[in-house]
């Protein structure tokens, strides 16, 4: 009996200024799944993602992660299981050197500097960025920053990887490398993106979010070849599926 690693039950969220960003989102993700989240701008994708590690708490409804209900007191525990990578790597690499950044998570988890350093090196190795370890983040390229940002999350050994527009500022080669990397991970993955080709390559399942609710949920191949559905959500067919 596979347990759900992620469960959203009728989650609603209202911002302090009154905007209702999520209006009853429900879905489940099982262990090992890779799910893409797509939708128009302002549909609620980012808000949804921010609930996944407790940066936002639902106004109503429940979020359960690995059988732990999300609440103020359980956020710390949940952040060990869920690693989020945000859109702008510059916002996530805030330490003086790459190695210190990747070791930030393990150190906060209570590891000794030695153990944290080891974990950090291992994580950097996995993303092929070990040689960057002593460099300051502002001396490396955008693609390298993305890789390091992923490493910084991997070092915490999360069960789930959540990513918001991971390839947004990458050049084609870096993007290819990223896709290959993501495919090599056995973690459960949740990827929010406008890059539908990336979703097609990386995710088996796809959820369409529209105006704060789930508009469609099914196999990625199916959803992403449904032209009408996509266009109704200000999207279009992945470039690889479009006929010239």
């Amino acid at each position: 009996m596979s347990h759900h690693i992620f469960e959203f039950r009728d989650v609603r969220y209202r911002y302090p200024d009154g905007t209702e960003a999520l209006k009853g989102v429900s879905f489940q993700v099982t262990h090992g799944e890779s799910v893409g989240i797509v939708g128009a701008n302002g549909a609620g994708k980012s808000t949804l993602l921010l609930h996944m590690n407790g940066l936002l708490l639902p106004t109503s409804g429940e979020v359960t992660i690995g059988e732990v209900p999300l609440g103020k007191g359980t956020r710390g525990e949940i952040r060990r299981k869920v690693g989020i990578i945000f859109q702008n790597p510059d916002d996530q690499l805030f330490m003086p050197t790459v190695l210190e950044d990747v070791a930030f998570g393990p150190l906060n988890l209570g590891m000794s500097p030695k153990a944290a350093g080891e974990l950090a090196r291992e994580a950097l190795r996995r993303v092929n960025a070990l040689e960057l370890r002593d460099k300051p983040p502002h001396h490396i390229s955008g693609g390298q920053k993305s890789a390091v940002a992923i490493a910084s999350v991997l070092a915490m050994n999360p069960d789930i990887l959540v990513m918001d527009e991971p390839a947004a500022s990458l050049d084609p080669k870096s993007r290819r490398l990223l896709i290959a990397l993501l495919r090599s991970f056995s973690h459960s993955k949740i990827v929010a993106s406008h890059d539908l080709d990336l979703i097609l390559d990386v995710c088996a399942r796809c959820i369409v979010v529209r105006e704060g609710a789930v508009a469609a949920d099914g196999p990625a191949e199916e959803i992403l070849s449904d032209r009408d559905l996509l266009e109704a959500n200000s999207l279009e067919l992945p470039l690889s599926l479009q006929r010239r």
Partner: protein
Amino acid sequence: MTLEAAFYGIGRLDRLSYQDTAVHRLDPRAKVVATMLFVVAVVSFPRYEVLSLFPFFLFPVLMAAFGDIPAGFITKKVVAVSPFAVFVGMFNPLFDPGTVAIAPGVSVSAGWFSFASILVKFALTVSTALLLIATTSFPGICRGLRRLGVPALFVSQLLFLYRYLFVLMEEAMRVVRARDMRSFGKRGTGGRIFIRIVGTLFLRTVERAERIYGAMLARGFRGEVPSLRREALRPSDALFVLAAGSLFALCRLVPVPEALGRIARGLIA
């Protein structure tokens, strides 16, 4: 200084600071201490002293040579920041009523000597300060300061500032460029536009800080920024400080040029 000039100037200095030479490998604490000793020694010279200061040039010259720091680069920067010192010092020849004989029958205001003293001291202290950052990465200096007892919160602040320095400068350049492109040649910004530029930048900065905070929380941040390294002082570091300190003390207490000059004249005559 324009944003662009500052950006590339600092950028170059920043890159130089990550080079790998014997000087760069010295412990930051040793370099900070040596630099401070140097500055204090130089600045402690009496106001009219000029020639006895010259031996002190050995320190920045050696640091630059062994640290692979281009001499022209440093010199240009020293000249660039000299205006204030020149401005204040240039009144000395005017206001000093004392005079000094520099040749039989010729005397000038003693103020020229104090002015020259200021200029030489200025060249020495500024070049050495620049060489400190040129041979030690800023995070290295911060780590050194922490080990020297500076409060963790302040050090963490320095590191954060440094990390986002170039990011913010780039953002500022983008905003200013956008303004320039719509100014049609009218140079400079009026007050109202400036306020809008700064205000926009400020808001973006606050938003960025919120995102960074979110990223920190996501990786378990609970108030303390953890540190990874524990560097130990090596014998070479202690030796460096000792040697430098002794040299400064010597040059401060003994008028080296005078002595050398006498020896030279003795040899010639």
